Structure formats: C-alpha cells, structure tokens
C-alpha cells in the first residue's frame, strides 16, 4: 500500500475536523478523494504529505511515517491554491524547484511540455490565468518523478479539453507506476479513478470503486450514487 491511514484525528482551531479516518491507497492506483468542500479532503491530504499537525492515529506513506525527511524526494504535493512564485516567469519557477529537487533542465522542458505550458515559459506567472497557474504548480510537483502524487483539486477551473488531457496524463503516470491521490468535489471525475474515497463531514463514508459504487446503489450516475451513499449513512446513524 502506498498510503495507509489508521484512525486519523485532526483538530484545527479547536474543532475536530477529521474524526478517526482509516483508509488505504493502493500502489500505482489513481485514487479519487471525493466529497463536498469543507469535508476535510485538504486536511487529509496535508496529513498524508506530512505538513499537518495531527491529534491522533497513524499515517504511513511508502512504508514510512508521514513527514519523514526521506519522503520529501518521493512525494509530489500540489495545493489547491497554486503555490508558485507569481513574480517569477514560468521557466524560473520550474528551474528553481528543479534545482531544489536536483533534476536538470531537460527535465524542466519535459515537464512543461507534459502540462502544455511550453509556449508560456517566459511569461510572468502572475500574468497567467488561474488554470495556467495551477498547471505551473502541478509541473513543479512532477519534476522529481515522485512515487506518490497528492493533488488537491488539480482540475478546478480548467476547460473540458484540458481536463481530459490532464486525466490522460494522470493515467499514464499511474501506468508507469506512480500512485496518485486526487481530490475533487465534482463527482463526474470519479469515473476516471480506479478507487474512490467518499468523504463527508470529516469522516470516510466508503472506500469503493466506480463500478462497485454503481452496483451497490443501483445508480448509473455517480453523483446520484454518492447521494445514495450519504442518505444510507444518515439513515443508519
């Protein structure tokens, strides 16, 4: 398992925002983390990347406790808000992060090409659109060929063509052995994933697959299927 989370509890600002979450992310899978905004997806991802102070439980990533120093070369993390330098050009951003992770300029060119930013290299990052900036942030995370990619809503605000292209790239990365954990609040992206983690109000409702979800709920539409899972959870409470 690339990621193993046991009974994870996180308190932020005096409120418990994750109430004992347990889950597993399989090696080389594309796992979708789905749920409405504010349900704790980002906090869970931060815990996996090792930047979140946790209250209880264990998070094991690639066989090591989350946050271990040696994981910093093996994980790529893309936050929801693009975390790149607005006052640098696209190329300067990538060159800086490339030197930090220790890869060369050819890798920079390769990554820029894979996210479709090759024509934007000399543009100031702050002058790009939101979707373009998000791709600079994604490209920066790809530089070191991480074994695990944790992507927080990477396709928000992208047009359908780009979104399809990115999903194609995610699948090809997974094909090459990368594990991807991708959050989204749009259920139609769930169909792209191998595994699904359905979250609500700081708890994991279900760990499933798109097909199993359709079968268990009798709903073809994944949004409706998610709704059915929520309703079932409410009834059993």
């Amino acid at each position, binding site marked *: 398992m690339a990621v193993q989370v046991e009974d994870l509890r996180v308190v*932020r*600002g005096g409120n418990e925002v994750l109430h004992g979450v347990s889950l597993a992310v399989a090696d080389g899978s594309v796992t979708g983390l789905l749920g409405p905004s504010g349900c704790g997806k980002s906090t869970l991802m931060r815990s996996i*990347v*090792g*930047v*979140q*102070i946790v209250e209880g439980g264990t998070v094991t990533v690639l066989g090591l406790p989350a*946050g271990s*120093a040696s994981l*910093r*070369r093996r*994980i790529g*993390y893309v*936050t929801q*808000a*693009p*975390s*790149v*330098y*607005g*006052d*640098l*050009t696209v190329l*300067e951003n990538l060159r*800086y*992060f490339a*030197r*930090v*992770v*220790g890869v060369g300029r050819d890798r920079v060119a390769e990554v820029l090409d894979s996210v479709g930013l090759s024509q934007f290299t000399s543009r*100031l990052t702050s002058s790009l659109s939101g979707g373009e900036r998000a791709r600079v942030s994604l490209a*920066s995370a790809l530089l070191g060929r991480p074994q695990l990619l944790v992507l927080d809503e990477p396709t928000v605000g992208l047009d359908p063509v780009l979104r399809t292209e990115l999903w194609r790239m995610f699948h090809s990365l997974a094909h090459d052995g990368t594990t991807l954990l991708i959050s989204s609040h749009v259920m139609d992206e769930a169909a792209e994933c191998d595994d699904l983690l359905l979250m609500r109000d700081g708890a994991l409702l279900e760990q499933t697959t798109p097909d199993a979800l359709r079968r268990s709920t009798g709903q073809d539409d994944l949004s409706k299927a998610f709704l059915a899972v929520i309703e079932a959870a409410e009834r059993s409470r």
Partner: protein
Amino acid sequence: MSARVTLATAQRVLWQIRHDPRTIALLLAVPALLLVLLRYVFDGREAVFQSIGAPLCGLFPFIVMFLVTSITMLRERTTGTLERLMTLPLAKLDLLGGYAIAFGLLAAAQAVVVCIVGFVFLGLDAPHGAWLVAVLAVFNALLGMALGLFVSAFAQTEFQAVQFMPALIFPQLLLCGLFVARDDMASVLYAISWALPLTYAYDALARATSLAPLGARLVLDVLVVVGCTLGALALGALTLRRRTA
C-alpha cells in the same frame, strides 16, 4: 544543508527582485537621496552632518533589509510557497542561507551607492576608509534581514509586518546614540541601550567615521552584531515549521 539548494534559493530571490525594477531603483536611490536631504537640513553645520550622516550610511541597509525581508518571508508564507518548500528536500538553513546571500548582495549594492554619495560627493569623512563603512553596512543589513525573517512569523498581513518597523527599529535608532549620546539619556534608557543590537552596530560606525582609533571595541561591536544575527536566524529557523495546524 546543500550548497546547490542554498545558491538556487539566493538566485531565486534575486530573480524575483530583478522582475521588480522599481524596487531596485528605490532601494538604491532612496538612501542616497535622504542623505542629500540631510546634508541641506544641516546646511552649514558640517560637524552635525558628519556625526549623523556618516554613521547613517551604514544604518540604511539595516532598516531597508529588515522591511524587505519581513515582507518577502510573509509572502512566502501566505502564498503557500513556504509550505511547498517544506515538503521538498530543502533544509531550513538552505532557505535562510539563500535569503542571506541574496539580501547581503543587495545590501552591498545599496551600501556602495550611499557611501559613494556620502563620502565622495557630500564631503563626509571616513578616516579609516569608506570601504569599512560599506562592510559594516553589509553586516548591519544581515542583522536587519535576520530580525525581519524572525518577526515576519508574527505578522499575518503586510499591514502588520510594516508596523514592526516603527515598533522594533525606531526605538533602537533613538537609543543607539545616533541622535543623542547615550550618556545623556535617562539612566534606565542608557541601561536598556546596552541590550539592543543596533547600539553596537552604531558604535562600530561611529568609530569608523571618526578620528578615534578603532581598537578592540570595534571587534567586539562586530562580534555582537554577528552574534545577534545568528541568534535571530536561529529563532527564525524555529518559526519555519514543517508541520502546521
């Protein structure tokens, strides 16, 4: 810590500044223009201009780098780039060292400009050489940078960050002896002034710009400034958290 990552960080900070030519112009021109202003405020009172203007050449970089660094680090925190860096194979010392190199170079450029204007064009005296003032200015700039890095952790907004300048720097400027000799102050203030790093920074500059011999006290002054810089950097490193709430 790695030299590659430290130098990459220094270069990145310089790239950022290069994209902001107005900031570069302000950094280089404003201290020099203020010195010209001071020259004519004390028109005909050369001794006063010498006693205030000459040490001030080495204090401008301290004030400016404090401000610039605290804002830069605050932006690093608020835009999420700090969090990204903390997930990468980058040591905290790489980040701090990169900042020190970049802002040290910037401070050196600023010090050279203000020293040329002061000691060449405005007739200020530096009996021990203007280069000594410029070197002290770089040390002071690094002290300002280190303090700025540290206090930026306590600011959530730019508005708060700029307030730390009058809150932490002005009192030190008033008590360091630049405007009034420390012996003439209320005894409580005199005692407090011993605990403030700028007192030592000023003392070194006052010696460098007067006929008095430099002596062992100059060495002590520089050591105190360097010590305070390292102390502030260590405290700053503590505020760079890999994990946050």
